[in-house]
């Protein structure tokens, strides 16, 4: 082929850069994330079931924010009939007060850095009573 030298060199450099995440992390296995639920004295029930929250908590939060900010609806009534204020800091983090032991566990493992925390304040973790 024409310019064989340039092409092969370029391909090798490209492959090296492209596969960097694989070979730079070789041998380092990250532990499976273990998010810790809040102590029973702080909270026993979430606003929805665990399976749903695992898959869709971000979609829930996105629609909550449009409901609160743009539609001025702030109360969420769950299937169990309990009313909750739709707020990340004041409802979700009220119970899941230890962000490092809960939220960050999975987020760090998956290299997800949501920018919610840039604005929404994180309360101090609540101790077991």
């Amino acid at each position: 082929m024409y310019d064989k030298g340039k092409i092969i060199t370029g391909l090798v450099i490209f492959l090296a850069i492209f596969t960097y995440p694989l070979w730079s992390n070789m041998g380092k296995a990250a532990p499976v994330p273990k998010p810790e639920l809040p102590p029973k004295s702080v909270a026993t029930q979430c606003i929805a079931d665990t399976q749903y929250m695992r898959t869709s908590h971000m979609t829930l939060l996105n629609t909550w924010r449009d409901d609160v900010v743009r539609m001025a609806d702030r109360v969420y009534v769950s299937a169990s009939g309990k009313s909750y204020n739709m707020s990340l800091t004041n409802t979700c983090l009220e119970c899941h007060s230890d962000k490092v032991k809960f939220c960050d566990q999975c987020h760090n493992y998956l290299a997800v850095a949501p920018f919610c925390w840039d604005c929404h304040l994180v309360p101090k973790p609540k101790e077991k009573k």
Partner: protein
Amino acid sequence: MGVDRRKFLKLAGVSAALGLGGATGFQLLRPGALDAAERMPTPYQMVFPKEHGAAEIMPNPKRLQGRRWGMVVDMRKLTPASARAAIEACNYYHNVPQIPGKQNIKWIWTAPYVNVFPETENPWADPDIKNAQFIVMCNHCDNPPCVRVCPTKATFQREDGIVMMDMHRCIGCRFCMAGCPYGSRSFNFRDPRPFIKKEYPDYPTRTRGVVEKCNFCAERLAVGKLPACAEASGGAMVFGDVDDAGSELRQLLRKRYSIRRKPNLGTSPQVYYLV
């Protein structure tokens, strides 16, 4: 096969359109959806019609309700101390950062008469008025130019008249700042958190890159409280429903002479100053 490629594509397109349209129509017309709201279903209800939990989304039953919110500032009652208290209350309850210099953030502040009402110069006005420090904030205009110019509807006007900011959507273009005739808006040139004197945990801060301004304490109205500045002003600032002829606001406006900032611009500001 009597179908050629063009006919097949037309058929596929129409079926897809019907399918999508039918699904949306089904969601909108499902039992209870129409009488639950004379308005459009909320974004939540459109995405999760039969969610794993939510029975309902609704406004807080304790909220203050008004058809059109406004504020009256009684300049005879406003003292430097009460103005300072109002400003500090607002800054505390909204985590407004105190940044020195010209890239500062102000939601509510005081300024002299000649600056607040620059086109109404009256050299022989009552010195009590001319030399007074007026308290200024977003006027939540009826015809807000900032809302008109926002390219993403990040700033929008609610039905009750409050001009709101959606910090999640703002792209930081600052067109609204150019559009505001009153200089009520501030931009986060930097990360504000290091400059917050005392963090109020129940309200978010903002990040660098978005515009912010007074929001008539929409989050406090939602739980039945009055705006922080009105509460802290010792009666000098009265918040109420401009549309309700019997409200304290309207009584004050009937009894006393009031002025507004730059009324000739047609923005119809809803902050009235009793002089």
